[in-house]
């Protein structure tokens, strides 16, 4: 029975069913039941029948466990000894019930006693899981805010937030930056509903700080990108800055630095516009509480870094590239751009490839590919522009870290696209 404690029937006295010194047996079930039973363990072993044990206890009639009557008695008498005895004779019951016409359902009970989960348990869990997934996909599952949990500590979270970013924030200003206007409105309304006529909420929303942060980001991005792309026209720089300031980028960065649970707003999770505003407000707080270089490094590492790996072509789209190339060449006093076919293959097939180069005064400007000649010419013009503006794939990457600290921010605007000429770029130092 209990393999871990050697025990002979003679050693075990009443109330001490197991050989363990403190009377506890790890293997639970059977012997614990026997311990609770005042009937001597020895008698159970020697007699070996349920009927004998139950009869000694005086709550069972001899021979009544068999068949339908036995089940009834079993339910009535919940004594542990009886349960254990039922378990012991489970196999015998199976044998008997196989002979009877009536099904003996007491067997499932004995299975529970043995620690075997019945056949309905796994299907139940499967159904629950299925329902869970379905409700989640339908959006019916309530999303719990982290702040609704009992051990939520907002102060500790704010402290940890600044430590994670390794920045020093002004505590009150940080709270203000994370407070959306919708939260204050909702809180005021809630308190009024509860009967507080004058809620007296001494909270400010983050609108001012967001505006401040937006200015900081814009100014730094302009200065940085002008220095990083000295030959890119001002229109391109503006498009890049606009991209950096876009709601998508701002909110993505906000989510990325873990503002999701810290923002105080009406909706949950915070909408992208709320998140974007909060991130700008965080930059605004940093500009107040930290020196400018530190704030600039923050903007560079979190906002400007979003440009890494992006094609400038996809952010700043030049509509009529060949016209722009022609204008630039005209202003530079060069010859007209001339597209020439460099290579073609599979002209008669649907997989035709054309390689076109753009030349001016027989000098190569750029080349592009395409499935038609028109596409290839357009791409060649784009390539010529990329070469002129030095934003090709082989151009040096954006400076970050120590390299970026050395680069002086450029306040004056780059050359605009209308005035762009090759001669004007000769005096521009590129890094």
């Amino acid at each position, binding site marked *: 029975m209990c393999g871990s404690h050697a025990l002979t029937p003679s050693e075990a006295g009443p109330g001490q069913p197991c050989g363990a010194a403190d009377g506890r047996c790890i293997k639970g079930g059977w012997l614990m039941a026997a311990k609770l039973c005042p009937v001597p363990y020895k008698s159970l072993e020697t007699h070996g029948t349920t009927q004998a044990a139950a009869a000694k206890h005086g709550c069972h009639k001899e021979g009544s466990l068999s068949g339908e009557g036995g089940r009834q008695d079993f339910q009535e008498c919940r004594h542990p000894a009886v349960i254990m005895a039922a378990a012991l004779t489970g196999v015998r019951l199976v044998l008997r019930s196989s002979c009877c016409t009536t099904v003996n359902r007491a067997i499932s009970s004995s299975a529970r006693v043995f620690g075997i989960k019945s056949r309905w348990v796994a299907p139940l869990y499967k159904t629950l899981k299925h329902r869970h997934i379905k409700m989640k996909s339908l959006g019916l599952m309530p999303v719990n805010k982290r702040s609704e949990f009992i051990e939520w500590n907002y102060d500790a979270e704010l402290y940890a937030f600044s430590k994670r970013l390794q920045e020093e924030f002004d505590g009150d200003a940080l709270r203000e930056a994370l407070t959306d206007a919708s939260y204050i409105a909702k809180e005021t309304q809630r308190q009024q509903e509860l009967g507080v006529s004058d809620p007296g909420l001494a909270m400010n929303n983050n609108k001012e700080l967001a505006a401040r942060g937006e200015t900081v980001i814009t100014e730094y991005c302009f200065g940085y990108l002008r220095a990083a792309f000295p030959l890119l026209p001002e229109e391109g720089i503006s498009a890049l800055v606009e991209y950096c300031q876009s709601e998508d980028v701002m909110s993505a960065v906000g989510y990325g630095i873990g503002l999701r649970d810290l923002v105080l707003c009406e909706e949950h999770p915070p909408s992208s516009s709320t998140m974007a505003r909060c991130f700008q407000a965080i930059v605004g707080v940093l500009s107040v509480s930290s020196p400018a270089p530190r704030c600039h490094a923050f903007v560079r590492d979190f906002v400007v870094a979003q440009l890494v790996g992006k094609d400038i072509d996809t952010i700043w789209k030049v509509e009529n590239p060949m016209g722009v190339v022609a204008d630039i060449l005209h202003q530079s006093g060069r010859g007209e751009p001339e597209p020439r076919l460099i290579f073609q*293959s*599979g*002209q008669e097939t649907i997989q035709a*490839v054309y390689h076109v180069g753009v030349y001016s005064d027989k000098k190569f400007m750029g080349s592009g590919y395409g499935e038609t000649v028109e*596409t290839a010419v357009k791409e060649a013009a784009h390539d010529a522009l990329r070469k002129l503006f030095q934003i090709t794939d082989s151009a040096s990457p954006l400076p970050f870290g120590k390299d970026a600290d050395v680069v002086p921010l450029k306040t004056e605007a780059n050359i605009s696209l209308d005035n762009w000429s090759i001669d004007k770029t000769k005096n521009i130092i590129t890094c």
Partner: protein
Amino acid sequence: MSAARRVQQWATFGRMWYLYDGKWQNPLESADKIVPYLDGSHKPIFHPLNDSGDHVVVINSRDIALPGDEWEKRVYFHHTGYAGGATWTLAWQLHEADPTMIIRKTVYNKLSKNLLRRGRLARLHIFPDDKVPDSILKNVSAQMRQLRPVPRRLDHYPQEELENFPKIFDWPKDHVIN
């Protein structure tokens, strides 16, 4: 994906069309040269799951040159599947029946043995002479170098050049050379 990236990929995976002149070339060695072009393994982007094979247009397949006595000794076996359906055709007989067959069979045997084999062979276009339809010739974008230069026989030289060629002595007028 920006337009530049899209056309870059288009150009990378674009198919080339190579022209190969089979005149006086050994078809067995030529197949070794043609097969990598058909399955694309001559490209740096090659991958077994990557459909990057090129087209090869072989011209003048009637003028291929088998080495030694291969024309008489090389035998092409075919079996119809019926009893007594086996045939053994000599190379010169097969070449007479279809002047593109020897080079096609050679390339087919040297292509890797998988399900892509027939598709790759379909990119091999063989013509017995230099008359290639325009629809195919327009696609051609490059030429494969021949394995060996085509030898020039004495009767290929123009008469004028032969006469002006410096000679050590003149044959007697009544001397018959051939």
